[in-house]
């Protein structure tokens, strides 16, 4: 499998080239399946690598292909590294990616620009694989930028709609702010350690003392990159807007893979973060505030995709809290389970939107249970998983995050637990509003309702199964089952494990599970009563008052950014256009033209049309030149 390693990213790249160059000349069915099969190929190779790594804890597949850059003290190889962390990311990306590719075949079937869509999707998978495979920060950065580009292209896929273009630009610009932090972090790493390859950097970093200022600076700068990419406060506003893209894109890029790149990066650099507890503290707080804020906003959204988007931001906040508390494996665990259930929820939402003919507002849905049985059932599983109901996947990973937060600080635990309850509330609200009660759409939509084709439902079912059993790779101690993921990841997070705080008592675990179950039951009962029995429908935005209005308007964060950054920039650029561009530069440039024009309009009268005169001038000029040459 080692010599096939390079094929993992190259296969999707090939798919991109064929679909991108062939474009309209490829029959639609062929381009969709071609794109899916390339990702499936990568998945099979990744699975082979996984099996290889599974048996021997010491195995790390490292392949240096060629010398990439060499300038002065800077020497960098282009190489891939597969250790236990990247192999898990590989499986998630290619596995979930493949399912979403297949789903897209059905979802995008009415789309004329079919090949372009799959070309972008394959390009995204390629860059994401480069991101996790790279053996140095530089290669990670290449993938990092590449996925940002593909995200931009896919959010603005329907580029004829100006709002979608704006959303795409917003995503790109917000990400660029984070990327700047990442880039500065890389510079600082190179200045401190003289290398950007993981091995060298981590080896020398673990020798530094705790809270070394330079380490704190590096980790914080890198985390700024993660803030942009993983949609944390204050740069998260691009993610909800990114829902402008096709729904499978939201599932793949803005839920399962790209947004977890920041988490991957921190887990990858866990040695640095362990050595910088101060940065970890900040990370935990950022994650916590993000989780709470996004969950609160999610409570009052009425767009099915927006709810899921804020839920993604909130769940990413959970992962970041896990990173901040030093539980890197737990964060990865939540990345995996989140990839399953959030991809599932997004794809279900896509299926609903598909059936509703493009309608995304839950106020015009309701009672879809009968028309969409498969979607309904899988969405329910996804909801249970994200709400943290045992034994679904989200329960185990969220439980672990909560336990780690408790060890870190009981206050953090309390806030996070409340956020988890809010998560359950908005998810069941969404579920009941969409699938239960009476249908609130138009008659036309009602006649159009239909279950999606098999290419869409089969990925849903597979993801539902994964969301159900995916949590078993990380069983808590009280079930007396081995915690597979912790054992598997031990070589990667050895240093972090060594410094990790204590364990929670078994009693605490039992209480946590019991309370979770009771609260969940209460949430289900209350939301059911409110939205099904009482038939409550969220009011129009203009009718909301007080805190509800603030929540529906997303805490006015967008308005705040507009007032503080966008507007002053607009004013500044308008002023410089008026004064510097028009007033100064244009005047200078134009004056050249005016002067030339004026002098020539006077000089041209010397050309009288008398050939004898011209000849005389010529001879005279030649003589002048001769005199000049003789004299000088």
């Amino acid at each position, binding site marked *: 499998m080692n010599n096939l390693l390079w094929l993992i990213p190259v296969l999707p790249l090939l798919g991109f080239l064929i679909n991108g160059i062939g474009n309209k000349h490829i029959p639609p069915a062929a381009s969709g399946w071609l794109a899916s099969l390339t990702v499936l190929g990568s998945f099979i190779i990744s699975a082979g690598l996984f099996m290889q790594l599974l048996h021997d804890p010491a195995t790390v597949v490292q392949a240096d292909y060629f010398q990439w850059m060499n300038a002065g003290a800077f020497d960098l190889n282009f190489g891939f590294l597969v250790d236990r962390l990247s192999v898990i990311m590989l499986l998630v990306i290619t596995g979930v990616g493949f399912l979403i590719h297949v789903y897209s075949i059905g979802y995008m079937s009415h789309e004329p620009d079919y090949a372009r869509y799959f070309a972008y999707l394959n390009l995204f998978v390629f860059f994401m694989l480069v991101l996790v495979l790279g053996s140095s920060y530089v290669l990670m950065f290449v993938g990092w930028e590449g996925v940002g580009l593909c995200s931009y292209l896919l959010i603005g896929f329907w580029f004829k709609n100006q709002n979608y273009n704006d959303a795409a630009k917003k995503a790109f610009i917000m990400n660029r702010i984070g990327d700047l932090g990442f880039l500065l972090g890389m510079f600082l790493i190179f200045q401190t350690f003289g290398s950007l390859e993981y091995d060298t950097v981590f080896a020398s970093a673990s020798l530094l003392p705790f809270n070394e200022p330079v380490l704190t600076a590096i980790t914080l700068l890198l985390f700024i990159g993660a803030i942009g990419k993983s949609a944390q406060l204050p740069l998260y506003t691009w993610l909800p807007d990114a829902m402008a893209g096709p729904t499978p894109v939201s599932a793949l890029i803005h839920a399962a893979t790209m947004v977890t790149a920041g988490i991957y990066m921190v887990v990858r650099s866990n040695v640095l973060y362990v050595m910088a507890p101060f940065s970890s503290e900040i990370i935990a707080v950022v994650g916590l505030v993000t989780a709470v804020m996004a969950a609160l906003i999610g409570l009052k959204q009425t767009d099915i995709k927006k709810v899921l988007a804020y839920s993604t931001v909130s769940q990413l906040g959970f992962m970041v809290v896990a990173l901040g508390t030093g539980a890197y494996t737990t964060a990865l665990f939540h990345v995996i389970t989140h990839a399953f259930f959030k991809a599932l929820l997004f794809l279900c939402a896509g299926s609903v939107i598909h059936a509703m003919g493009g309608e995304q507002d839950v106020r015009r849905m309701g009672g879809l249970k009968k028309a969409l049985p498969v979607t309904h059932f899988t969405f329910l599983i996804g909801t249970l998983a994200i709400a943290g109901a045992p034994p679904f996947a989200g329960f185990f990973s969220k439980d672990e995050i909560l336990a780690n937060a408790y060890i870190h600080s009981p206050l953090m635990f309390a806030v996070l637990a409340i956020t988890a309850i809010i998560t359950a509330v908005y998810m069941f609200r969404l579920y009941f509003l969409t699938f239960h009660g009476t249908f609130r759409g138009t008659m036309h939509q009602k006649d159009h309702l239909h279950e999606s084709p098999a290419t869409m439902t089969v990925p849903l079912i597979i993801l539902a199964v994964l969301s159900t059993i995916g949590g078993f790779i990380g069983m808590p101690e009280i079930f007396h089952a081995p915690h597979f993921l912790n054992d598997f990841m031990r070589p990667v997070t050895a240093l972090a494990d060594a410094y990790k705080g204590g364990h929670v008592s078994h009693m605490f675990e039992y209480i946590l599970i019991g309370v979770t179950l009771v609260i969940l039951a209460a949430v289900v009962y209350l939301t059911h009563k409110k939205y099904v029995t009482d038939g409550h429908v969220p009011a129009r935005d203009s009718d909301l008052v007080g805190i509800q209005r603030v929540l529906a308007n997303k805490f006015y964060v967008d308005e705040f950014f507009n007032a503080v950054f966008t507007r002053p920039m607009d004013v500044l650029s308008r002023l410089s256009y008026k004064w510097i561009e028009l007033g100064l530069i244009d005047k200078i440039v134009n004056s050249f033209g005016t002067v030339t024009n004026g002098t020539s309009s006077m000089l041209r009268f010397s050309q*009288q049309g008398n*050939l004898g005169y011209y000849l005389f001038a010529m001879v005279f000029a030649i003589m002048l030149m001769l005199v000049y040459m003789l004299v000088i």
Partner: protein
Amino acid sequence: MNNSILDIVHINNYLYLSLILFAIGVLGVLFRRNTIIIFMCIELMLNAVNLLLVAFSTMHSDPGGQVMVFFIMAVAAAEVAVGLAILVMIFRNFGGVDINLLNRLKW
């Protein structure tokens, strides 16, 4: 320098002759009105230079100058053909060969 034509007629005489020829050419171009005469004056200047080239070539015992003159004469023959064709066109279009008829090249 024995047996050279330059022993009989000194190089200075060639210089004076070609200078006079060239000056006549220049003055003719500047002061005559007839286009054919102007054209002939241009040829005169050309040949004044040719004469000088040949004379110096003999003086330096270097045949290169004489070869160059043959080339110049060949090119001049071609140039004369073109020049005369232009003259014919001028005559047809303007009904004369006076240089003052060609006064449209102005602002």
